[in-house]
């Protein structure tokens, strides 16, 4: 009797273990898990191991952004306009504490946005003006690399580094991985801090990480990102396909010297700055 029970317990235990791990094994073997985690990671296998910071994605759309900082100098209100447009479009809560704040696009001094650039004998314009900071939608995003649930991933069609808030478990590993501080965590229910709702877009729940999505929902409607649209008449922000040589953004990048944030880290940011 006792022996039988032992045997039963053993078999039951083994079966339960197998049952628990089955989904993982099935998933891992049935789908090319690595490839689906983002085109930047494996699928395209860029061969730029040479020391130059040359960045190319051989094919496909790679959306990017250029901030023409010359148009912002002396006009901090323009930055605020773009930031407010974003806050409104995405139901971003306005939390008045450095600890818990949530921001997708924000302004900060040059030293903070470009900490690896020397600020010694900085020009007056860099000294006296804030710079725009936003998710870089990197071609080799470390946040995607570290996410344990594929809650953040690269959209193959556009190169956007997107979030799936339904999937996120809130481990904040992506915040550790991001070298640009572009990610915010919902430390509590954000809704009481949202001033007005945009009925076109959801809010977030507590316990998930959020960040700029390059306005994927607006692009689908044929609109430009909210920040770009807000500064349309100034033309301070240009948005478009970096891989399309005929796009406006490609033209601007050809004609101007631009800088990127922390290019030495090999993340290949898709956001550029004319300073």
């Amino acid at each position, binding site marked *: 009797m006792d022996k039988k029970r032992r045997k039963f317990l053993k078999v039951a235990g083994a079966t339960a273990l197998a049952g628990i791990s089955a989904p993982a094994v099935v998933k891992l073997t049935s789908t090319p898990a690595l490839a689906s985690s983002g085109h930047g990671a494996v699928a395209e296998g860029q061969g730029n191991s040479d020391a130059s910071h040359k960045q190319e994605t051989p094919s496909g759309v790679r959306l990017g952004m250029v901030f023409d900082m010359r148009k912002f100098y002396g006009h901090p209100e323009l930055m605020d306009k773009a930031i407010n447009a974003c806050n409104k479009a995405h*139901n971003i809560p306005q939390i008045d504490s450095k600890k818990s704040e949530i921001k997708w696009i924000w302004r900060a001094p040059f030293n903070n946005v470009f900490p690896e650039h020397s600020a010694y004998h900085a020009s007056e314009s860099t000294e006296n003006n804030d710079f725009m900071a936003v998710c870089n939608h990197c071609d080799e995003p470390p946040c995607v690399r570290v996410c344990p649930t594929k809650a953040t*991933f690269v*959209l*193959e*069609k*556009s190169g*956007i580094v*997107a979030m*799936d*808030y*339904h999937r996120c478990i809130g481990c904040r590993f992506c915040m550790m991985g991001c070298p640009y501080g572009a990610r915010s965590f919902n430390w509590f229910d954000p809704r009481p801090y*949202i*001033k*007005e*709702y*945009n*009925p*076109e*877009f*959801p*809010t*977030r*729940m507590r316990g998930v990480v959020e960040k700029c999505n390059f306005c*994927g929902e607006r692009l*689908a*409607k044929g609109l430009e990102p909210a920040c770009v649209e807000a500064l349309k008449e100034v033309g301070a922000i240009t948005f478009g396909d970096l891989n399309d040589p005929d796009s406006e953004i490609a033209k601007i990048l050809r004609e101007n010297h631009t800088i990127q944030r922390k290019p030495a880290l090999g993340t290949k940011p898709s956001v550029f700055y004319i300073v």
Partner: protein
Amino acid sequence: MYNKVTIIPGLIIFVLLVTFPLWFNAFSTASTVPKVELPPGGEKQCVAPAAEMRASHMQMLNEWRDDVLRNGNRTTVTVEGKVYRKGLQMACMECHTNKEKFCDSCHEYASVTPYCWDCHLTPSLAASKKETH
């Protein structure tokens, strides 16, 4: 069998207890199948037949979600000539504007609490904080 006297009544009590919800429902009138409110706007056609929606709207919402968010496939659905974007807020709530009288009545009856509303806004909630200037 040892202890027949205690085991058999025990078993009977156990079975009765386990099947209690069934007994309770059979004899009580407290829970009738809820009647949901049809779209106030008068729309008659949904994206799929009512029976199918009733049975598997959650799977469809999950598929939409993955399509839109993860695959970047934001194709639209057309019902009776009207185009909807895929999404709970963007399609469903366009017609079923009253979450309390539509979604909740069934969900409460079935005792499910989907987490949709932790993030997605109902039309009434969205209207509660609207641009005032």
